[in-house]
């Protein structure tokens, strides 16, 4: 019998996943800043502290580097910590532990240990929080062998991928777009997983492949609905995992549509779009391309405070529509 499916918000889906993980495995615990009675800066942990107590929903001091290191140390010695960063920007304070320790410990020790830690990063712009609370730094971590980096775009994936992350023996970094927390979608009750490393074709189409991540998936789908009325049939690939990347799904899609556009919120240069574009240029799909690849990414600036400027900094639905139309019609 299929599990009951409800409409849950993205934040509720994550919270449910964490509760299920804690119910299933006593080694799982949550740690982070103000995740207890406060419920987390974005209310993702919510009232979990009331159900699981302060030992398993552990408020940390404002010590991102130390906290990340404690999570790594606990993971190496038998626990399954889920460490919440209050904002993904604060990963910059903990890069040492993430990049030098979590990512490399298994390798440096010749496979003698695993580091089953999950780190959650509320990311992205759109909340008026300005330059130090709005970044999209997933490509930074995606550059590091030893880490797995995921960006679920729907409540369903948020729950299933978090449960997959908790079950994973290696460090998994989850980038959650803050504007998605209130987005609703169907989520089955109970335990299920969505595999890490597998992209999802969210809309099939013949004329153009849009590879999108996180919140840009919905924007690409909205753009595709408008473009459909103009006779442009867009395929939307939700990358979901940026390391290890599901190359084959993207290659197969581009071979079908012969056009590729990458849409992501992070700064355009040296980002996920560059990686996907290069991957296609190196693959057998290159011969199928009918037009140059297009990247739509964030502006080459910090995120501004002013709401109009802030919006202008990252790709919006009209930008995607225009770029897709030009690409399909051969406008350069």
């Amino acid at each position, binding site marked *: 019998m299929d599990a009951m499916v409800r409409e849950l918000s993205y934040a509720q889906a994550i919270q449910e996943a964490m509760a299920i993980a804690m119910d299933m495995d006593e080694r799982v615990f949550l740690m982070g800043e103000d995740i207890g009675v406060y419920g987390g800066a974005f209310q993702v942990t919510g009232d979990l502290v009331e159900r699981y107590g302060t030992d398993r929903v552990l408020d940390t001091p404002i010590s991102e580097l*130390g906290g990340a290191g404690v999570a790594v*140390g606990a993971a190496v010695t038998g*626990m399954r*910590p889920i460490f919440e960063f209050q904002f993904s920007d604060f990963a910059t304070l903990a890069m040492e532990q993430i990049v030098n320790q979590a990512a490399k410990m298994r390798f440096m*020790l010749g496979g003698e240990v695993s580091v089953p830690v999950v780190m959650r990063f509320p990311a992205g712009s759109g909340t008026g929080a300005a330059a130090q609370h709005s970044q999209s730094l997933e490509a930074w971590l995606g550059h590091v062998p030893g880490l797995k980096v995921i960006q679920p775009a729907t409540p369903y994936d948020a729950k299933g991928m978090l449960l997959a992350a908790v079950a994973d023996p290696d460090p998994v970094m989850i980038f959650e777009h803050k504007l998605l927390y209130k987005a609703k979608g169907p989520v089955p009750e109970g335990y299920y997983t969505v595999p890490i490393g597998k992209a999802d074709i969210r809309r099939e189409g013949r004329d153009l492949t849009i590879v999108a991540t996180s919140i840009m998936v919905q924007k690409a789908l909205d753009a595709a609905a408008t473009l459909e009325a103009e006779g442009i049939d867009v395929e939307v690939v939700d990358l979901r995992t940026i390391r290890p990347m599901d190359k084959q799904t993207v290659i197969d899609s581009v071979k079908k549509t012969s056009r590729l556009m990458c849409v992501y919120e992070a700064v355009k240069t040296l980002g996920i779009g560059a990686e996907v574009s290069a991957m296609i240029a190196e693959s057998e799909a290159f011969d199928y391309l009918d037009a140059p690849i297009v990247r739509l990414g964030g502006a080459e600036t910090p995120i501004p405070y002013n709401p109009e400027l802030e919006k202008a900094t990252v790709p919006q639905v009209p930008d995607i529509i225009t770029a897709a139309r030009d690409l399909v019609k051969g406008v350069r």
Partner: protein
Amino acid sequence: MAGASKAVADSRANLPFVYRQYSAEQLKQVLYKMYLIRRFEEGAEESYTRGLIHGTMHLSIGQEASAMGICMPLGEDDQITSTHRGHGHCIAKGAEVKRMFAEFFGKTTGYCKGRGGSMHIADVAKGNLGANGIVGGGIPIAVGAALSSKMMKTGKVVVSFFGDGANNEGAFHEALNMAAVWKLPVIFVCENNGYGMSTSTARSTAVKNIADRAAAYSMPGVIVNGNIFSEVAEASYKAVERARAGEGPTLIESKTYRHRGHSKSDRNRYRTKEEIEDWMSNRDPITLFENELREFGFIDDKGIEAIREAVAREIADGIEFAKTSPSPDVSETGNYVYTEQA
């Protein structure tokens, strides 16, 4: 570990801590291991000079009493995190020198299968979670291991070794604070050898003693002469007891000295020959311990000579083992990046 019997203990009532606490056999084993650390590092240094080991290494020659003293009250299940100057910690926690040599030689029989080398030497089975190339990198990890101990109720105590340089890293302060707030079974051991690379503690550190910083985190701060085995072991013993009783962390500052430079690139421009000579001639930890053992009647010259010979054999065998062990195949470069899943 079975210690000295009651009758023996009574006869040693006026001796320093370790001579009351441990059996003659245990103490001779300590001397053996102090020599093993010294000769291991000399052997590694010689192998480096002869081109058999590449990269670099950080030798702890002169700090053997600190490693042995801290590890003396630890059981095999207890855990440590170590530093770039971590060969002594590794041996003190029970590692075999042949597998350490093999690691330095980059061989598959090494503790890290040739992937880590000197700076990442580890022996997880014996509780050594690894040396660390990042100054202060292991300190929060030790706190995490102690959190595991508390949550899983394993009774394990975790020791985090670090140097004086690390006490000015943010990780040190964040980790000590969390360990104190959560009353975790962890012991912070600062082996203060006077210099963070070339910069003296006087020039780098605002407090006179690193142990003074314990006050900021409401934990005991203990200063010991790191070159006197008994002093170090006694402080460690008390800290372990406190940790096991659930009373929380301790910061031990073990004042010591490295005879060698920071690493193989050191031109030794920041300290005088006289200073080094003084520490080598008058405060060598092995000589000091040996003299005490002899003076208190635990060993004679013949016994010492037997230990030196046995250590020399173990070192020679270890180097031979490393030399004759296989190297990893280049096709296996990608192994261990992720956990292999069936």
